[in-house]
């Protein structure tokens, strides 16, 4: 059943890619901005083999990873603090709720002003993006922690900080990780967008250069590259998640979000 689903999904992708190739080859879509898939793949392999793309990919992944890590840690810490120390929630929740709906491109100009155009700005943009889904899921997770588990800690004389670290945090982890998984996809996109704005680094800058040079195959090569990277990152993350919270999957629970 499961194998069948994967196969039919694979065929859909293959059919779409074939349609792409044909639509360009047979001029169903006639534009210099619609190259054939084979040209795009040739450009992709050329720029990987020439050594141009690998360091750019590395740079983008580094910025994404650093931002994702910082944003996720902040999301978990603030989420725990909001739930376990209501004072912090009273102080910070309004600010957080006001920041949440702001689209990332809108915060880039002030970030450029304070952090410049290089990695600090780009990593911060990614961190801000990652923060909110992790925060929301962490708070959901804390709300779902069994009251008995916390009372159990109290009857053994375990202090509040230790209870937070050894009961609430591990119990919340499956929810927080579900948030990180959402943030992961967003982070890659946002890292590339930030690179497109300024500075000469990463896949985003490569994409802008290729747009301005009118090199459509390279542009689409970047898009394919991002799609493959995003897919691989998600698969890798799920594998890590299954190891880190094996008990959660053993209990047959599903973290939503």
């Amino acid at each position, binding site marked *: 059943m499961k194998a069948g689903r994967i196969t039919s999904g694979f065929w859909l992708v293959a059919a779409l890619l074939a349609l792409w190739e044909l639509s360009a080859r047979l001029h169903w879509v*006639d*534009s*210099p*901005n619609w190259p054939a898939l084979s040209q795009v793949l040739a450009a992709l392999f050329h720029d990987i083999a020439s050594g141009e793309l690998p360091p750019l990919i590395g740079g983008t992944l580094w910025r994404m990873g650093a931002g994702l890590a910082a944003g996720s840690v902040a999301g978990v810490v603030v989420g725990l603090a909001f739930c376990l120390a209501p004072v912090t929630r009273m102080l910070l929740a309004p600010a957080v709720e006001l920041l949440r709906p702001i689209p990332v491109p809108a915060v880039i*100009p002030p970030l*450029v*002003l*304070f952090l*410049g*155009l290089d990695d600090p700005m780009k990593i911060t943009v990614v961190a801000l993006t990652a923060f909110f889904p992790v925060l929301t899921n962490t708070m959901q997770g804390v709300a779902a922690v069994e009251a008995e588990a916390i009372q159990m800690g109290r009857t053994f004389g375990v202090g509040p900080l230790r209870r937070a670290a050894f009961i609430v945090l591990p119990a919340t982890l499956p929810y927080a990780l579900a948030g990180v998984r959402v943030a992961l996809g967003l982070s890659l996109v946002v890292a590339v967008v930030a690179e*497109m*704005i*300024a*500075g*000469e680094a990463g896949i985003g*800058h490569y994409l*802008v*250069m*290729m*747009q*301005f*040079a*009118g*090199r459509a195959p*390279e542009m689409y090569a970047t898009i394919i590259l991002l799609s493959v990277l995003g897919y691989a990152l998600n698969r890798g993350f799920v594998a890590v998640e299954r190891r880190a919270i094996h008990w959660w999957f053993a209990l047959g629970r599903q973290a939503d979000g």
Partner: protein
Amino acid sequence: MTQATRRAALLGLGASTLMAPAINAQALTKMRVSVIPVLDVAPLHAAIAQGFFAAEGIEIDTSTTAGGATGLPGLIAGQFRAVFSNGVSTMLGVREGQEFKFISGASRATMGPPDILAVLTRKGSGIRSGKDLEGKRIASNTRNNIVWLRGMAWVEKTGGDWRKVTTVEIPFPQMADALIGGRVDAVISSEPFVAAALETGQIERIGWPMSETQPGCTNAHYVGMGPDLARNGEIFDRWARALHKGVDWVNERLGQPPLLELISNFSRVPLERMRNVALPAYAKNVTPAEIDELVGTMQRYGLTGRYPASASLIHKTAQ
């Protein structure tokens, strides 16, 4: 912010002086310059490639921004020491009280066709003039910039009322598709996108907005901040000397393979396309007259306001 950055730079400089005096003799002044991936910045790249900046003790770090969106704001914020900017954006900033100064010319229109801007339409659309465009849609990469301004001047010059033409903002790379797809009736495009659009065979050129309206008119310049120039004038003297050597290098090789290869290298535009691309006139200086003409044109097309005397905006390196 500017001050903090500068202080950090000075601290860094001081520390390196103490620790490694031997190396310091060769240490280069780092300057970050905002550029756009267009043909106009060829002299800057030539000067980098030919070692003219290194010879002046300067290391250039270029930062490419699409459409120049972060250029002037980055200059104000102290992220850049110099910015390649089109004249309209610069003067609009000056009008709002920003202390921008022209530190070098960059590009002007040629005295006659071909020049780097072109008005394009679909083949067979029947549109030949600004008059034909009344009530129709024309695309510019940005409203209220030099491309739009020269485009409006062309509409008027060819008998149209620019107020009756609707401007749509479309980035250069997407203009050809928008035109072929019928989403706009004409576009004001820039090289090398003009050459790429003409390669499709479905698009034709109907006008040269710069050389037909104001031959040799001003286009883009390098801009610095007044306070920085006052304090660090000597650095900018060296910077301009190196850049102007690059201008000479480029002007000596107009239309020749070494220049086309250089442009193809930094812009990534395929070399075969470069052979069909029109180049601007590369300039070293900025004249009060060309700025006055620009301001006059801006006033005429709705960008009104009080602008300071043009001579006061031109730093000695651009005179």
